[in-house]
């Protein structure tokens, strides 16, 4: 570049900098930003968060923005800093891997509030996390799977063997056996959250091994599609996946973040932000089941509804001893109930589950 060219370039850069609006003035509208690990799409974890984002615009008149497919790396810090610079003082970081990074950013910006997703990693006065007691609805879907399987084999396509996933698989298996003690539960690990070709292949492997109900902890509907193609049943994850296999889709846990996100923003505006690892579930409506398939008999529907109420009332404890792990070690003694802390740090699968143990992964 010539010297003149450089001069011109600097001039243009300066002009451009002047055109960028100065820091946002005191805003009447709260500015809320959402950071997602995946694309929004039409279903799944991120899609449900985006429903809540749009809800904030309508219910609170909030000005929102979002970043899709943001890797859980130091890049996220840069993006958070940019958002803060643009005046977004409330950040929803919707994945586990952001939590450590959020804590870094929160320290530098005490006036920014971050609602994260990684419980147990750490908190700060301006950081909280939200997560679901996903094992509650998974137990209910296990009941349905146990009743609907004809081959007495139920498959589970699992993402990563993390404490966010393992209690859900365990609860699912316990639900299956509560409804059908003869049924086998087979688990396959994909080591992906969102990789449709892989997740479909995993579901196919389970179907080939005789499973006729395929459950999943994945963000893609690929396992539902695999089940639909093979004429089997499927249990979805995170959102209503019925469009991907109307005949196959029995039901699935569904997240509804709207009430919690709204409550969080309101609390922040009112100066009542509470730093905590918050767990929602069936009781506060964060989690529910997608509409049940019409092929599910009324007796099963009743059983599921009863179990749902019993979980809410505390009469039914999903993780009640005795529970042994795959190796036969007693993890929960008879008569005892797992604490929230123990559940969310689970590193094992329940005795009787067919599939590689998480520690072998």
């Amino acid at each position, binding site marked *: 570049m010539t010297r003149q060219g450089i001069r011109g370039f600097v001039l243009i850069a300066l002009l451009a900098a002047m055109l960028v609006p100065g820091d946002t003035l005191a805003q009447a509208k709260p500015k809320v930003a959402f950071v997602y690990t995946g*694309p929004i799409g039409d279903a799944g974890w991120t899609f449900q968060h985006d429903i809540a984002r749009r809800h904030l615009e309508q219910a609170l008149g909030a000005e929102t923005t979002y970043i899709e497919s943001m890797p859980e790396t130091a890049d996220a810090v840069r993006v958070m800093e940019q958002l803060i610079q643009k005046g977004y003082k409330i950040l929803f970081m919707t994945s586990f891997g952001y939590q450590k990074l959020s804590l870094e950013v929160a320290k530098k910006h005490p006036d920014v509030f971050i609602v994260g997703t990684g419980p147990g990693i750490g908190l700060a006065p301006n950081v909280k996390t939200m997560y679901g007691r996903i094992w509650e609805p998974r137990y209910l879907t296990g009941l349905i799977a146990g009743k609907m399987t004809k081959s007495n084999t139920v498959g589970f396509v699992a993402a990563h063997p993390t404490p966010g996933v393992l209690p859900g698989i365990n609860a699912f298996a316990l639900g299956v056996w509560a409804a059908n003690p003869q049924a086998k539960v087979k688990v396959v690990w994909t080591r992906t959250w969102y990789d*449709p*070709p892989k997740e479909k292949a995993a579901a196919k492997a389970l179907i*080939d091994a005789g499973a006729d109900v395929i459950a999943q902890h994945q963000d*893609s509907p690929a396992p539902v599609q695999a089940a639909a193609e093979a004429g089997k049943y499927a249990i979805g994850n995170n959102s209503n996946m019925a469009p991907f296999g109307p005949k196959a889709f029995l039901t699935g846990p569904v997240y509804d973040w709207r009430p919690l996100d709204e409550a969080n923003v309101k609390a922040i505006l009112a100066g009542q932000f509470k730093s905590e690892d918050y767990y929602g579930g069936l009781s506060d409506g964060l989690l529910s089941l997608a509409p049940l398939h019409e092929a599910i008999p009324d007796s099963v529907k009743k059983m599921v509804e009863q179990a749902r109420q019993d979980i809410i009332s505390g009469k039914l404890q999903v993780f009640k001893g005795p529970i042994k792990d795959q190796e036969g070690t007693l993890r929960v003694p008879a008569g005892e109930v797992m604490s929230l802390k123990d559940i969310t740090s689970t590193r094992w699968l329940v005795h009787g589950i067919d599939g590689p143990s998480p520690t072998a992964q």
Partner: protein
Amino acid sequence: MSEDQLVRLLAATIAMGTPLVFAAFGEILAESSGVLNLGVEGMMLVGAVAAFIAVVVTGSPWLGVVAGMLGAGALAAGHALLTVTLRADQVTAGLALALFGGGLSSFLGKSYIGVPNPAPFAAISVPGLSQLPILGRSVFTQDALVYVSYVMIPLGWWWLYRTRPGLHLRACGESPGTADAMGIGVVAIRYASVIVGGMFAGLGGAYLSLAYVPAWTENLTAGLGWIALALVIFATWNPLRLVFGAYLFGSVEAMGFRAQVLGIQANTIVLRMMPYVATLTVMLLLAFWRRRLAMPSALGLPYSREQ
């Protein structure tokens, strides 16, 4: 392992190998004419998304195939313009194409993520043949695009090695100067090879979004394009050996999950590394035996008459 399980394993192997067969065959065409195109991943992604958009809009999977091939072919034409006419560095241009194709496909497909495929290619059993034990039951119970690949490979090999146009194409990759002196239009042939090669990469991508998955999501190919590139070397630019390599890769993928189901405590992380380990091994062998392997002599070199 029962016969049924073996049949399903073989069927899954073929299905997983097919996108690689298409994409790597396309790359063999381009490289045999002397043009390295590292943009396979990007062309596959654009092919996948173009095919998916077309099937959603028109409801016809075959129009999807056409759109996927045209989309990727257009991208490849850009590569041909850069590398053949403008004589840009083929490695750089190819890498740029891979990145550009990835971004472009994300952009085009944004509103199609998670939309169900209205008319996916379904499995068709070939009467008679699909009744044969094991091989018949796994080879002849696939979808239409897999049958296309069965026909394409021997035909492609025959065309490349047994016909005059095929010879001309390879001559451009071996010694463009000699080919030019013989009156072969080097520029035209290289253009055609790169564009048609790109169309096959697009077909590989379209197979994923129209038949295998069948849906669109960002980065649907998840690295298959890079494996296809490695496969070309693995197959030493021979379409017949390519099929063997592609199905080998397919079987590793298909085996991974089945090993888990059968209760074999296989480490999934190690299993997922296998295709790349195999690729590196072949590259290493190639470094030693380059001369004996049929690498096109003028691969990667831009041609201009004055030189």
